[in-house]
């Protein structure tokens, strides 16, 4: 077209970014890649092709890692780890800083390579993925520097297996590798088979930076390689990907002692109230669901619009969609590029085709016929019952319904298995800040969307996984408490002759919903003292008692809204009442366990109650220093309903050590009492009953923990399970938790010094809270 023609049409034309340098880099590597193990690229092996999804062109041939490759990578990482940790924070900080600088120096090469491999628009790779990846290394260089001073009680986990997805290949690598390295871990990372090239370029960057060999290892291949890493002798698995695979990883790592963090799917709500800046909310959707072709785990994919403005909002949205430009990802004027693979295009097409309800608007914009392109799509008029409102589509398809009231908005928003992110648009600060804490999500954006930074933790709740990446809150996923582990001693109940107990027969029942209730099964078992004397009978709880306790705990939601001050008052009151009966409890403990340590345990329990009464109004959140004009508030929220298998030893102190941090932080608990010594717990019920603890906040079950561990771990309405009982239950709990991907905290057969510092403190408080990052940009 001539200048004179364009002068009339005012078309954009094409503004292609050159692919020459990135293609030349691939050629320079021979077009075939091995793995990066122990500081060197291995010779290319049998493998698969990596294609450009926009054109179908083969970019390179990659190797499918074998078991030997994975073993070699893990071995190299293991060998390198102690030296890497011994470099100290400053030594590692310098290395991470060098990586960040090199990422910056090669920024365009990384961006273009990412576009070729993944299909995302160059604008996004250039302006978002690569700068954020750099930012993660800079940020965590700082964390390495500060580790000794700020985390004096923590040390590296060891070798981390990391499996990342194809939607943000370099960025996800940075999210995983930077904190791991900062804390002194070494890594074996598997990029997704569609998108391995920037990881292989990153390996080269590590060499240039002088990262010691074995600290970063990269193996390529499909899910089979991922399974090998999961099964390997690693100390931690960090996985980002689908919920189905996440559940599988949870199951197969159960009981292995491997730490696990999962960042999984989402169906994040995007709520627009009638007082919002509607045009800005429409533009936000471009960043929410048409960012990266909608292949974003935290995509605002479920639009909820306030009824008074719904028609107007949809009209504006459809008009905006028609302006989106879909096409060659290397074109600088493209909004929506190619999806990662034909398989993804078919999957999205199929999901949309199978659906018949609502009203569908496909963006009236040109879409290339060849390549993995899918048009921006909006489906309105859906209902929560529609599959597309519940299932993650993972493409540029937005689904929507309307709501009448703020309460209904929250209810619709939370009507999902997922809980990764949420967006709220309103010009009313009261409304926005009221809604944000009510949303089941790890991240809430107010009047913005997809805001991310290394300083703010990223991660979800429910089936969106657990653990946070970024911020101070992300470091616990790559560290463990210092100190050598001692194996847990098996403690068995005392045996006896079945003779009558002294005094009037007392019935130790279960404590559910504020009432002492008989066990559903109708069975009890005798409890003998150390001397063999019958002390009484304890109820045997079964799965129905678990069910009843969970229902009671769920009904006690008001506790989570109670103020920290009130929760503290009640914990003090419990301590006061326990103190009043200290002698009696000490005697009971002595009789059950033998010895004379009962009073010491009672006193420790009272101290512990005081500790968490103290913490109840002091475990503050943070305001993160993110690079926007605004705040990212890391709010500490209760996890919800926590089931705890209390330790067999120290039957009173163990119970209190699980209960007190949980309820101090606003959780409701179901406590499975010490199996050999249950009567301390049943006596404690009377203390609870006289201490103004609301019904359902604390529930106590007795009987074999094995009978309740499984139903508790698999119960979909339990949010976390802690297992400090027998070693074998760790596996049961972890495997069962895959049902709804609840958080778990298990002892893996390792003893804990309940009387000492390990028995209380921040570790417990962190396990009892979720960090929700609420982003509030401001400005007038």
């Amino acid at each position: 077209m001539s200048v004179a023609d364009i002068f009339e049409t005012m078309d954009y034309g094409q503004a292609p970014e050159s692919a020459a340098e990135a293609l030349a880099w691939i050629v320079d590597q021979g077009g075939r890649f091995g793995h990066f193990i122990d500081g060197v690229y291995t010779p290319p092996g049998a493998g698969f092709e990596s294609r450009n999804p926009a054109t179908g062109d083969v970019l390179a041939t990659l190797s499918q890692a074998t078991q030997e490759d994975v073993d070699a990578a893990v071995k190299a990482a293991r060998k390198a780890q102690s030296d890497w940790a011994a470099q100290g924070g400053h030594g590692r900080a310098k290395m991470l800083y060098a990586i960040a600088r090199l990422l910056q120096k090669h920024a365009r090469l990384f961006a273009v390579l990412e576009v070729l491999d993944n299909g995302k628009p160059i604008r996004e790779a250039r302006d978002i993925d690569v700068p954020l990846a750099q930012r993660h290394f800079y940020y965590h260089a700082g964390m390495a520097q500060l580790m000794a001073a700020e985390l004096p009680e923590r040390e590296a986990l060891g070798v981390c297996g990391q499996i990342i997805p194809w939607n943000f290949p370099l960025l996800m690598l940075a999210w995983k590798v930077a904190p791991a390295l900062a804390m002194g871990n070494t890594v074996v990372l598997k990029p997704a088979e569609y998108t391995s090239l920037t990881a292989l370029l990153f390996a080269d960057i590590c060499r240039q930076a002088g990262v010691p060999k074995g600290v970063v290892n990269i193996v390529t291949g499909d899910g089979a390689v991922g399974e090998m890493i999961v099964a390997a002798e690693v100390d931690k698995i960090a996985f980002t990907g689908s919920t189905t695979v996440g559940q599988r990883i949870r199951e197969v790592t159960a009981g292995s002692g491997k730490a696990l963090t999962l960042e999984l799917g989402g169906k994040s709500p995007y709520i627009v109230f009638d007082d919002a800046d509607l045009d800005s909310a429409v533009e936000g959707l471009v960043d929410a669901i048409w960012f990266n072709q909608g292949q974003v785990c935290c995509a605002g994919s479920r639009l909820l619009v306030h009824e008074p403005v719904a028609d107007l909002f949809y009209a504006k949205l459809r008009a905006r969609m028609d302006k989106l430009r879909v096409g060659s990802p290397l074109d600088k004027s493209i909004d929506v590029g190619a999806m990662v693979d034909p398989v993804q295009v078919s999957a999205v097409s199929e999901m949309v085709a199978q659906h018949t309800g609502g009203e569908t608007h496909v963006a009236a914009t040109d879409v290339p016929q060849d390549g993995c392109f899918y048009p921006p799509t909006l489906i309105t008029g859906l209902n929560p019952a529609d599959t597309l409102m519940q299932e993650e589509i993972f493409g540029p398809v937005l689904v929507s319904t309307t709501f009448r009231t703020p309460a209904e908005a929250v209810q619709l928003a939370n009507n999902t298995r997922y809980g990764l992110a949420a967006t709220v648009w309103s010009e009313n600060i009261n409304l926005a800040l009221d809604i944000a804490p009510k949303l089941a999500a790890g991240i809430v954006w107010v009047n913005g969307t997809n805001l991310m930074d290394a300083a703010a933790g990223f991660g979800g709740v429910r089936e969106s996984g657990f653990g946070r990446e970024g911020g101070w809150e992300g470091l616990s996923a790559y560290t463990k408490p210092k100190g050598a582990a001692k194996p847990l001693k098996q403690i068995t109940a005392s045996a006896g002759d079945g003779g009558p107990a002294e005094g009037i027969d007392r019935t130790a029942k279960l404590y559910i919903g504020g009432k002492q209730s008989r066990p559903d099964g109708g069975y009890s078992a005798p409890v003998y003292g150390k001397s063999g004397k019958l002390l009484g009978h304890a109820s045997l709880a079964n799965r129905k008692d678990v069910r009843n306790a969970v229902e009671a705990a769920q009904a006690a939601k008001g506790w989570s809204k109670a103020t920290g001050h009130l929760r503290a008052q009640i914990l003090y009151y419990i301590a006061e009442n326990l103190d009043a009966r200290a002698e009696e409890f000490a005697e009971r403990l002595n009789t059950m366990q033998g010895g004379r340590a009962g009073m010491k345990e009672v006193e420790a329990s009272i101290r512990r109650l005081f500790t968490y009464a103290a913490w109840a109004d002091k475990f503050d959140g943070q305001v993160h220093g993110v690079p926007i004009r605004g705040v990212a508030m890391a709010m500490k929220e209760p996890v919800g309903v926590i089931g705890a298998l209390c330790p067999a030893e120290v039957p009173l102190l163990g119970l209190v050590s699980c209960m007190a941090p949980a309820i101090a932080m606003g959780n409701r608990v179901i406590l499975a009492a010490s199996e050999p010594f249950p009567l301390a717990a049943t006596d404690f019920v009377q203390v609870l009953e006289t201490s103004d603890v609301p019904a359902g906040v604390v529930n106590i079950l007795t009987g074999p923990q094995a009978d309740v561990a499984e139903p508790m771990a698999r119960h979909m309405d339990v949010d976390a399970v802690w297992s400090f009982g027998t070693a074998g239950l760790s596996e049961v709990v972890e495997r069962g938790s895959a049902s709804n991907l609840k958080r778990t905290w298990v002892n893996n057969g390792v003893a804990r010094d309940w009387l000492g510092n390990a028995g209380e403190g921040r570790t417990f408080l962190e396990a009892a809270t979720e960090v929700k990052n609420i982003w509030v940009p401001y400005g007038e």
Partner: protein
Amino acid sequence: MTAPLNPQTSSDTSTEQTHLPQVTEMRNPGLPLDLNWVLSAQANTSAIERRAGNIAARRSVKKAHQAAWLLRAVTCIDLTTLSGDDTARRVERLCAKARQPVAPALLDALGMGPITTGAVCVYHEMIPPAVAALAGTGIPVAAVSTGFPAGLSPFPLRLKEIEMSVADGAAEIDIVISRRHVLSGNWQALYDEMSAMRAACGDAHVKAILATGELGSLRNVARASLVCMMAGADFIKTSTGKESVNATLPVSLVMIRAIRDYYDRTGIRVGYKPAGGISKAKDAVTYLALMKEELGDRWLRPDLFRFGASSLLNDIERQLEHHVTGHYSAGYRHASS
């Protein structure tokens, strides 16, 4: 048919045939003041800044497209002199540049016929020399009016000033609103003032200068934009060029979204003029992209879009020469105004 912005000229001039579309846009007849609409307007500053901040990164025009877009920008410039030391000769020089803003040799090399700027913008006293210098060109003379730039002279005098400027041959009147009406939330007063000024303009088109740098918030900008359109403004314009903050992309986004809302509800297209602070060719392209994205191609014509600028043209000329020769250009190589 004549293009509505230059009602006193006909379309048979050669310049118009090259750049003005043969369209008839109905003038904005205005609406009764709709306070519900005005007060429901919201503008979230952070979100608006994000959108405004990435428009340049989202849209890039290169090579021939860039040249064509820059030429289009030239045709949308209100070539302006608003200085206390303006003289008739100074204004004649400006008009000469308006008639031939880009050297014929450059236009030839680009395969373009002659083009002109959108208008020449002057103070009232400079209207006669401007009208004389532009006679027969089809280029309208725009006059800033109503006690520009503060707009605080007696109201009857402000109306009289408009009438005198129209009588002297100004085809477009750039009025300034009373900022105090916005800052005190007196939308009725703003509406009445704007209506009276619109009436005083008669057939001359009226551009309402909001002086956005003095309105305190983007929400006020959105609301003032709506009120001025309801009161019959043909164009809404950011600034006098005399405020400490003049045209910005966020302010522009708010104003053009108000224009879009007004069009969606009434079918009437109101024009937009950012003024002050736009001096780079790249900025001009970004503004055009913003108009294209948020309002559509129809708003890329001088009857609905103007730049209020004086130094922008020289930078565009340098970029055009670079496009033709492949070498970076120098300012002195292009005729001054």
